[in-house]
């Protein structure tokens, strides 16, 4: 056997678990950059014009770049790689009971393209005139002409990085969907697949179906920037609003692309720590599909006041409010799952429950914005910002912490410290609410977004508004200060945590059958599946869990078909 060098093992691997770790660590590193940018610009908003410790004075141009990069990084280089790519890669083969992805080399290429995209994006901080500062939505003509945005290199690198990132996730998505369709363990029907895998697959389909138009849009933007074409320039027959349609046709499904994997992670965790079967498993799958389909018909609610025909708002208000139905239903089903449970508040469970509690705030505040009449006032205020941070923070940050603390024993074979985990949880979650509740108020009071100093607006320069901005910034600094606890816990537990064993949480799904950490190839012997993933606390069973791979009980018709008649 050829000895695998370190580079070959960790950087050139086709093993889905190594690729998952590559995505996870790259995503978490990018989160540090995203976290630093928000620290700098929130300090500027709380103490305008004062030098920011560890950074210095913030100019208007720098402020715009930091805001733009924060949004771009957190969505495309943190939420996507961690929730979709890291958990998708790690969990899909393990939970389906197979040895790897269907296309391992495509998988490796996907990460390499992603890494390249991250390098291009980070490089844009260091080019002459600095990083792009036209917001993560990059509306032309501002983004299309350097005479408007004054960042000739930064804006081009931004488009290239985003386009590369999309290509990386297209490659990953092909793999996820194909693997889920073709590589399920014998006996595993589609309705024996754990919810998190369902969610990642649905999210991949949404991503692949929505990103095409934007990828085309990005190429047109690149041509406008570099060759002087006029796709978005009205003077040469183009239209700036075209980009907005292409962007949001992707941008709104994108919300669900990252939401669904996070909801899937939460579902796994609440089932295990309430020792309950998921309430209405199939209904959750159907509502996720319904949400995905409807998400293609809501995009223009981002454009109510963007100069589109005002009559279009009627249609998009209706679709936007309709999408509240399946999402509300999913949340109800999660809450119903807790009923009659035996709930243990471990660190992963605390994160999963906080996801539900906080996401509900994000959900209900969206109604104010989906209703066209009230959006006229609230659009592009801090109310919008607070709203989507109550959705994206639960998704990208709480979802990640839920998944990492839950599957850490499987990833590294050791347990994380519960004590440090809980300190980190409470510090993060309390501070989080103190950041964004004040910003709902300043937004309702008229603070508009992406302004580097509100004191330039006499009506906004009142002391109580400024006090709220300072509270939000102080809470942010507090929240960031709690994160080293997580990093310390993570690294220390990798080497010194208590040994986990294969199934420390006494869970049902197949990844807990493999050794911790699973070797290349995952399972000593590929498992056979006998039942659904959530048979917890089944009546007339001693144990309160019933792993999918253990024979017993009445076979389902599907099992009979696979295992033959000998069982019946």
């Amino acid at each position, binding site marked *: 056997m050829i000895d695998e060098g370190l580079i070959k093992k960790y950087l050139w691997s086709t093993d889905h678990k190594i690729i998952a770790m590559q995505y996870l660590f790259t995503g978490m590193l990018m989160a540090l950059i995203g976290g630093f940018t928000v620290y700098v610009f929130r300090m500027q908003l709380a103490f305008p014009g004062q030098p920011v410790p560890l950074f210095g004075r913030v100019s208007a141009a720098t402020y715009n770049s930091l805001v733009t990069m924060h949004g771009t990084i957190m969505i495309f280089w943190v939420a996507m790689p961690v929730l979709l790519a890291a958990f998708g890669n790690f969990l899909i083969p393990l939970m389906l009971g197979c040895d790897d992805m269907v296309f391992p080399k495509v998988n490796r290429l996907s990460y390499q393209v992603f890494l390249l995209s991250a390098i291009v994006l980070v490089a844009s901080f260091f080019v002459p005139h600095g990083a792009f500062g036209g917001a993560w939505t990059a509306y032309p003509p501002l983004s299309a002409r350097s005479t*408007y945005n004054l960042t000739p290199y930064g804006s081009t690198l931004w488009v290239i990085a985003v386009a590369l990132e999309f290509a990386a996730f297209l490659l990953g998505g092909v793999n996820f969907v194909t693997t889920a369709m073709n590589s399920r363990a014998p006996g595993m029907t589609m309705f024996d697949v754990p919810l998190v895998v369902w969610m990642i697959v649905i999210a991949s389909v949404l991503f692949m179906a929505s990103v095409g138009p934007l990828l085309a849009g990005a190429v047109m933007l690149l041509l406008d920037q570099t060759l002087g074409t006029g796709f978005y320039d009205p003077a040469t027959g183009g239209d700036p609003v075209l980009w907005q349609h292409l962007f949001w046709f992707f941008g709104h499904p994108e919300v669900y692309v990252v939401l669904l994997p996070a909801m899937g992670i939460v579902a796994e965790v609440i089932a295990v720590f309430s020792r309950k079967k*998921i309430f209405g498993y199939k209904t959750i799958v159907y509502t996720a599909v319904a949400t995905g389909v409807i998400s293609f018909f809501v995009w223009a609610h981002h454009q109510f006041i963007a100069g589109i025909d005002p009559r279009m708002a009627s249609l998009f208000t209706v679709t936007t409010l309709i999408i509240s139905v399946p999402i509300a239903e999913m949340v109800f089903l999660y809450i119903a799952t807790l009923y009659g449970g035996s709930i243990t508040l471990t660190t992963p469970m605390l994160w999963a429950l906080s996801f539900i509690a906080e996401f509900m705030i994000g959900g209900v505040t969206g109604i104010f914005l989906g209703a066209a009449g009230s959006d006229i006032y609230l659009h*592009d205020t801090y109310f919008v910002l607070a709203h989507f941070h109550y959705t994206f923070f639960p998704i990208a940050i709480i979802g990640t912490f839920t998944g990492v603390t839950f599957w850490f024993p499987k990833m590294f074979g050791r347990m994380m410290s519960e004590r440090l985990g809980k300190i980190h949880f409470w510090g993060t979650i309390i501070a989080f609410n103190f950041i964004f509740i004040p910003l709902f108020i300043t937004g309702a009071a008229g603070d508009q977004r992406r302004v580097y100093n509100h004191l330039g607006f006499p009506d906004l320069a009142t002391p109580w508004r400024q006090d709220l901005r300072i509270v939000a910034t102080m809470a942010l600094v507090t929240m960031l200060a709690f994160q080293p606890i997580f990093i310390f816990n993570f690294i220390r537990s990798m080497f010194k945590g208590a040994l986990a064993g294969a199934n420390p949480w006494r869970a049902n799904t197949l990844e807990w059958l493999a050794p911790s950490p699973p070797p290349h190839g995952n399972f000593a012997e590929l498992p056979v599946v006998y039942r659904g993933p959530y048979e917890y606390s089944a009546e007339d069973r001693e144990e309160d869990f019933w792993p999918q791979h253990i024979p017993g009980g009445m076979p389902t018709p599907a099992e009979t078909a696979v295992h033959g008649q000998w069982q019946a």
Partner: protein
Amino acid sequence: MMSWHPTQASTYAADIDNLILLVGVVVGIFFLAAEVIFFGFIFKFRARPGVKAQYVTGEKASEKKWISYPHYLVLLFDVIIVVAALRVWYEVKIDFPPAEDRVRIIGQQWAWTFVYPGPDGQFDTADDIRTVDELNLQVNRLYRYELHAKDVVHSFSVPVFRLKQDAVPGRTIVGWFKPTVTGEFDIQCTQICGIGHGLMAARVRIRSAAEQAAWISTTRDAERVARRGTE
């Protein structure tokens, strides 16, 4: 929430605020109920030694009703909100009442220019009045605005009017407002438009009819003097 809102200074400001209040009440009831039940469950069904969790699939009709009734309620509330939201939307953005005056608003990096048609009521004639970063209006007069952008997308926002509308290069977007109180208030640009976005502050000055007439005559005199100077 209402007390955080700025002054209501247009005919439709109160309608928008009332819509926000209606949505707040409707979703607030839902939100509180869901959170109470959620935390109640976490407390009530905490793990106890020797007590096993119940086996509930959520697939029986008797169990499903606990989800479908709230679900119907969500649909009902959605219908109420859609109707209320679109009534307000129709009033502000679609159904324009007859105008008594006109103003042209031009966004550019990084200033707002306001053009008033002057006594002849026509734009692009010699008696037009132009002001920069200051919109001069007469109280209780219904204005039709036409919004332009010279370079990039801007967004014309007057929080006291509860009005916001993007200005898009290549398009002329029309709308209306009717100021109801006198005073001086902020105008914002709410769409990022480059490094000066945060400096694109303007003011709206709303005056009584007499004060407005006085402002027009002094401004026109000043413009005439300025024009003669350049000839």
